[in-house]
């Protein structure tokens, strides 16, 4: 029996035009991302840098100047789509995140698809061993939920 693993798909609808939604999501990510809950450096994070171009990096910068990588931009197609190699862990294992922005009645529908998330678990132990940081490891989360 093969274990079929479907990508995770989540979406929201926002009352902004597509171009504004795309800009807010990407270059203004530092204004909304919940850093306290989801980052590597937590209280040390000064900002999130989103280099908006193919091959650009997405990373958090700490108040001491250190950087922690989140992703590389594989495809940059403003204002409709971007695709990231998502790897916010020091082991470097990468998974695939695509975000699309489509005009809707209320403004813009933003849909995020995450492939390869199942590989994060295999890396969770390595991630936990490599940094003591604030990004809750997958392992801790779903142990707590058990």
């Amino acid at each position, binding site marked *: 029996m093969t274990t079929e693993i479907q990508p995770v798909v989540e*979406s929201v609808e*926002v009352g902004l035009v597509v171009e504004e939604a795309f800009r807010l999501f990407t270059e203004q990510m530092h204004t909304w991302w919940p850093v306290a809950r989801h980052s590597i450096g937590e209280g040390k994070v000064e900002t999130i840098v989103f280099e908006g171009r193919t091959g650009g990096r997405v990373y958090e910068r700490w108040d001491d100047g250190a950087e922690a990588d989140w992703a590389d931009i594989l495809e940059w197609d403003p204002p409709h789509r971007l695709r990231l190699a998502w790897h916010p862990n020091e082991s470097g294992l990468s998974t695939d995140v695509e975000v699309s922005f489509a005009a809707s009645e209320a403004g813009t529908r933003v849909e995020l698809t995450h492939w390869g998330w199942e590989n994060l678990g*295999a890396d969770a132990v390595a991630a936990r061993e490599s940094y003591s940081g604030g990004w809750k490891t997958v392992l801790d989360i*779903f142990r707590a939920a058990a």
Partner: protein
Amino acid sequence: MFDALGDPTRREVFELLRAGPRSVGEIAARLPVSRPAVSQHLRVLKDARLVVDERAGTRRIYRVDPSGIDGLRRYVESFWKDALASFKASAERRSSGDD
């Protein structure tokens, strides 16, 4: 540049198990790594609760643990839901003229 720098062998071990239950020997036969290396990867996957094992005679058979996968999926879903909810809240402040 965009290569996964992580542990590709561990992912391959996991991929093999997704195709069906296997013993350490069966996995090692399909990969260019030693049995002890395979055992080490299986220990990590077991610790992450992605695989379980049971004795079948003298052999230990490993298989994917669906409940481990489900737990992991729930975490990933809640992670992105949370991020998108923050994005939406920020968008709402923006579209109402605040911020």
